[in-house]
């Protein structure tokens, strides 16, 4: 990240005047606050940050911030973000997504974004439900959670995003809790600072379709051990993870994706010569 640091940025500077559509009490308000705190901590001017998202309650977030935003279609935010960052490495590119957007319809892009390791930061606001479409199960929904579309539950084993991220090559893997925006903001800032593809799963309760998630604030806890740069150790830790460890799990040291440096040709005539006879 090449930061042009300006002094005295306040979290409030990063919020727009657009009023969120979220339900009162939605965890996403806190994620918004966490983003604002992270950007302020980094001191990055709003015009040098691009916040990309897909579709879902969570993906509404760009309009509520004062940086550049891109609110695309369902599931494709990581691809948009990769395009922005590869063509404009000078910008700070952050992606906001939901568990449906990021793990279901966008699941393939998640794997390949981890592999590709472009220097972007991926924040998934996981509420283990499709909020925007009114309460259908997502890949992280518990197997016995009853919904209209899945009476009695899906019976399916939940997707483990952190394991997938680690196995696919993400360079930074962490979990945050929306209920603690200060800590979540610091984690997001740390993730942005870390080179390569950084993934932060943010537990962000849906008060409307998952009122049971109000209990999350009692369940979250600090991780038992420090972050590691050893994928094998990180993987072992994930095996005993209860899903509520909050903090950085893995900090890798892979070299971020970047176009290979080659001599720059000014004149296209060089290419045209290959056709001439």
């Amino acid at each position: 990240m090449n930061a042009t640091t300006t002094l005295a940025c306040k979290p409030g500077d990063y919020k727009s005047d657009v009023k969120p559509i979220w339900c009162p009490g939605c965890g996403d308000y806190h994620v918004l606050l966490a983003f604002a705190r992270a950007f302020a901590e980094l001191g990055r001017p709003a015009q040098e940050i691009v916040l990309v998202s897909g579709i879902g309650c969570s993906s509404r977030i760009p309009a509520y911030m004062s940086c550049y935003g891109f609110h695309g279609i369902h599931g494709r935010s990581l691809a948009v973000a990769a395009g922005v960052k590869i063509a404009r490495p000078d910008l700070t590119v952050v992606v906001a997504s939901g568990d449906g957007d990021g793990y279901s319809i966008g699941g393939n892009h998640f794997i390949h974004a981890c592999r590709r390791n472009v220097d972007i930061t991926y924040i998934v606001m996981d509420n283990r439900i499709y909020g925007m479409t009114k309460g259908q199960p997502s890949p992280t929904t518990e197997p016995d959670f009853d919904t209209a579309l899945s009476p009695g539950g899906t019976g399916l084993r939940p997707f483990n995003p952190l394991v997938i991220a680690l196995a696919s090559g993400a360079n930074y893997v962490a979990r945050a809790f929306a209920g603690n925006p200060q800590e979540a903001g610091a984690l997001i800032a740390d993730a942005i600072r870390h080179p390569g593809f950084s993934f932060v799963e943010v537990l962000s309760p849906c008060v409307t379709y998952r009122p049971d998630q109000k209990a999350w604030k009692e369940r979250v806890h600090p991780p038992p051990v420090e972050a590691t740069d050893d994928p094998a150790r990180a993987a072992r830790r994930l095996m005993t993870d209860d899903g509520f460890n909050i903090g950085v799990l893995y900090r890798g040291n892979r070299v971020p994706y970047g176009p290979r440096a080659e001599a720059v040709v000014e004149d296209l005539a060089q290419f045209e010569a290959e056709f001439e006879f």
Partner: protein
Amino acid sequence: MADDPVSVSVALLGSGGAGVLTTGQLLLEALCRAGWNGLLTRSVGPQIRGGEAAALLRVSAQPVECHSGGFDLLLAIDWRNAARFDSEIALHPDGLVIGDPAGGEAPAAMVPASARRGDLRCAELCRLHPEWRANMIALGAAARLLAIPSEILERVIDNRFGHKGEAAMAANLAATRAGAEAVAAFALARALPPALASPGKRWLITGNEAVGLGALRGGVRFAAAYPITPASEILEWLAPKLARVGGSLVQAEDELASVNMIIGASYGGTPSLTATSGPGLSLMVESIGLATAAEVPIVVVDVMRGGPSTGIPTKSEQADLNIAVYGLHGDAPHLVIAPQSIPDCLLSTQWAVFLAEALQSPVIVLSDQFLGQAQGAIARPADIAFVGRRLRAQSAGGAYRRYAITGTGVSPMAIPGTAGGQYTADGLTHTERGVPTSGALDHSAQLDKRCDKLEQYDYGQLWATLEGEGDTAVLTWGSLTGVAREALTLAANRGVRARLIAPRLLAPTRPAAMRAALVGVRRVVVVEQSHGAQFHKYLRAHYDLPADTRVLQRPGPLTIRPTEICDALFAENVA
């Protein structure tokens, strides 16, 4: 084109992997270096190796845009799967068949009883000389029959294989000499017309390469794509070039990703392009709608192949017209441009980049397998001054309105990094500021804006090719334009004058311009390569055609021939 296009056509056949396509390329290059013009197309089966492959070559003193009705020479390294070309390749009654008797029989349907036959014992020669290659023997034979000067042939072989060392080179030359000797007793019934004495600077280029160069000339500096036949050569040509001009090409995980990557790169201010074929375009349409709504310039090249589904991946068809023009959900005005020849692949792609940038809109370029994989000699294309220029917002004070309603419908676009220009590009219906809304008035205002900016723009002469005169018109598009042009020459020789009308700009439609083009036309023959007559239905939906309109149409891959169009015109006039 001369009044009577005098040309010679050669079909080279062999199992896939036997090297007939290389033979075709070397032959074309040698002919062009010797002063002729030519066109080389390929027809191959789906197998990676060991299937069937044909290199189809037509040579003339004049530029060549299409194949004629039949072939003067059928030369086969082997006949193993040649029968699969039964319906595509037919020899003239006075034609010559050269083949290896050890490699099977020439399919009866291709070869009239009156044809002359000669042997080229490739397999036996290669057994005697293990270092020889059958396709080089075939090259020598074909070059001899076409009277290509041997020093030119040798130079072409040296250019291609010289790096493999002297021994390999000597083997190649010996093999070509053996091939030439084997056919020394034969001559083609029709000799090639004299080569051009001073043909000027020319290029030997494929349509796919021309698309790549058009993209670069237009200013494209980012591409993302997923490999697919027959578009991959565009990507393979662009990848190293983009790197050298300070851009990049990303191989994405799929077409959903590739189109969104170019949307992201373009949102960031870099003119961007992807290339695909029908299956990929199908995956991209939702995202192209996003680019329409968020007003992000992108160029999507579709090199059409036989569809639906995997269809015939290696052969040409014009059946993606519907999805290109109508495939987006919602009311999503965008541009569709169809190149008409190899040089037009360059021009149209460059124009597409220019228009995408000028109108902040997605542009679909509809090329096809015939154009994309055809290689031909063309006059060195002039560099037209189309370099994409986007109307940018400078650091804005006050509340920046990204989607401001302006007189032209185009509103200044802030590029990230521009202070005060922050906005959210949105696929949701939005206000002029870009704030999501579900208000009816905001919705219709933005729909109007996106429609107006495309409708009000002056596309000038490039919207269509308009040639000839008369009260009969051939209305066609894309790669059939060259075929129709030759048909009109044939018709003129038979005393019928007709016009050629071939829209290059398929969307937005240009009713006033088409009305003007059709003034005085009483009869129209629509010519297209789709089973469902997609082009005819499209024309009828948007343009007023005369009551006497008939359609000459069939699906790919059997290309419509100039003689068929000419006959259709003649039938009309006689009737």
